[in-house]
């Protein structure tokens, strides 16, 4: 028995002083497990359907098709944005939005939805947020591929700037994952918080630059205040990468980048605080 007693060792002693420390410890050596749980979460959602997890791709693709039909066929006169047809402009905004929306809404619900992992099993709680977000990310990478194929066919891509995807995509994952450190425990603790988030997210779609260009807002004060919406940073980042062909660090987005990183830092602090505070209380209230 002693031979592998180190593999299964659990103590409440010497717990980390910070939530970040706890989260890092909870993720050590769990990579494979998290990946499998993410795949399992996808399978679980679409189980019982013939096409299975393919639905995760089909559903948004259908939305995109409708959009294309409406803007490229129906409203031909919907004009262009920054010299690009509105459909491409929206496509490059919609794809990251799909992920952001999923990550925020599902991420906040994750603990409550997987409550059996918290109340019935000894399971590192922060992993729940990770695998939920990862499942959304897997779907989104598939969607990005579809988008890329469309853009290549239409001649907007490829370009060297497409490689910026490998910065924006992981960064987007990290940002909204860190956000769930706060939202998921809070939503698990109080259902009001969960409802608040879903309500806010419906409005966020129109407040963020998905169908319109944030850079072309005339009022200076409003334009600058839009920098504080991190969703805009990532959506514009995707456009720089796939549509405009602009570098990710340029004079016109210094401020935006700095604000995003500052926000990420603040979120880390808040999330760390709330995760540590609520981690031990949640099994008792769920």
């Amino acid at each position, binding site marked *: 028995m002693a031979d592998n*007693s180190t593999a*299964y060792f659990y103590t409440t002693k010497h717990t980390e002083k910070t939530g970040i420390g706890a989260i890092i410890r909870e993720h050590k050596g769990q990579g494979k*497990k998290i990946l499998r749980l993410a795949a399992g979460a996808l399978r679980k959602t679409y*189980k019982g359907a013939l096409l299975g997890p393919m639905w995760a791709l089909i559903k948004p693709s259908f939305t995109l098709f409708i959009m294309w039909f409406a803007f490229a066929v129906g409203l031909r006169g919907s004009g262009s944005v920054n010299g690009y047809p509105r459909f491409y402009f929206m496509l490059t905004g919609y794809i990251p939005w799909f992920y952001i929306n999923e990550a925020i809404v599902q991420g906040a619900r994750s603990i409550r939805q997987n409550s059996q992992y918290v109340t019935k099993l000894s399971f590192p709680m922060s992993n729940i947020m990770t695998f939920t977000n990862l499942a959304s990310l897997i779907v989104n990478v598939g969607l990005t591929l579809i988008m890329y194929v469309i853009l290549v066919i239409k001649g907007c891509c490829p370009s060297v700037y497409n490689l910026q995807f490998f910065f924006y995509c992981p960064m987007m994952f990290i940002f909204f994952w860190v956000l769930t450190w706060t939202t998921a425990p809070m939503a698990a603790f109080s*259902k009001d918080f969960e409802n608040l988030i879903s309500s806010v997210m419906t409005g966020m779609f129109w407040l963020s630059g998905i169908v319109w260009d944030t850079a072309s807002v005339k009022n200076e004060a409003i334009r600058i205040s839009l920098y504080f919406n991190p969703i805009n940073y990532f959506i514009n980042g995707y456009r720089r990468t796939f549509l405009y062909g602009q570098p990710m660090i340029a004079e016109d987005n210094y401020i935006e980048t700095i604000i995003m990183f500052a926000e990420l830092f603040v979120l880390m602090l808040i999330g760390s605080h709330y995760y540590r505070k609520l981690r031990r*209380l949640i*099994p008792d*209230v769920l």
Partner: protein
Amino acid sequence: MSEEIISDDMPNADNSDNAGRGQGSPPAAVPADMSGKNADNVKPAAPPDPDDDGITGEDFPEPDYNAPPAVVFEDVHKSYYLYSSDKARFKAMFTNNRGVKQHPALNGVSFTIYPGESVGFIGRNGAGKSTILKMITGVSFPTGGDVTVRGKVAAMLELTAGFSPEMTGRENIRMKATLLGLSEDEIEGIMDDIIDFAELDEYIDQPVRTYSSGMKMRLGFAININIKPEILVIDEALSVGDARFRKKCRRSIRGLIRTGVTVLFVSHSVDALTTTCNRAIYLKEGKVEFDGSVVDALELYNKDVEEIRRRRREKREAKKKKAQERLEKLKQKKIKDKG
């Protein structure tokens, strides 16, 4: 169900699972047939089970007191917050639970359990048994003090926990074993054993939502027993499936004990305790009242239970007496009125 069932064997509290395979379980209590462990110091010896497989507790290995302890509780306190409303709960997120009423469940519990020991926890409802088991399985956290657990824990607490109804039995086995920390190879290695043990046959590739509750229980039990735990946590009713399957479960648990696992056992059954455990911890109002031999613990527990019963009886009698007196008074009054 507190002291009333002290002499019942294996109270079938959640025995809703007989639907599974139609045989149904006889209402008569099934004696725990793990006889012989402490046979020399128990007065009412367990009746011999006609279907006993011949395995007795005598060959259970001696606990290893020199090894690092399997479970250590150091002055563990636990109190639950009682929120008066959803509003209070929402507020508590920002006020650090200030002013929220608390319910103390454990008030400084300390004990050490060594590998190979089988420890029974006894106590009335609300004494903190379940809270302790939850802490050992790593689900609940102490408010104060520390808990240390060495070894793979299998919890026979909520057997059906963590199943996803849409996935098949096989996928669920894989999922649950992953959650319990097993590797891919290990899972493949025990997969057939689990399916065999659960007796699910062709149902194993059907979604779990089509299972009866008995089938789910059997699957849950089969997983927990086959992951080769080092610490086995069992809560009270082992009423899984019909009588035959229950016996199979007990046999496999005994088999595990013989390999030297640590067993933590919550039960009110004298039989099960005396035959399985070599140590008992009696909990009273969130404190360790007694820690030692099973017989002494049971004696103390029974004494306390008797005391409570006596007090209750006295109360009842006092009430009766009062009513009688009142009746007498009324009668006298009636007589007076007539006269």
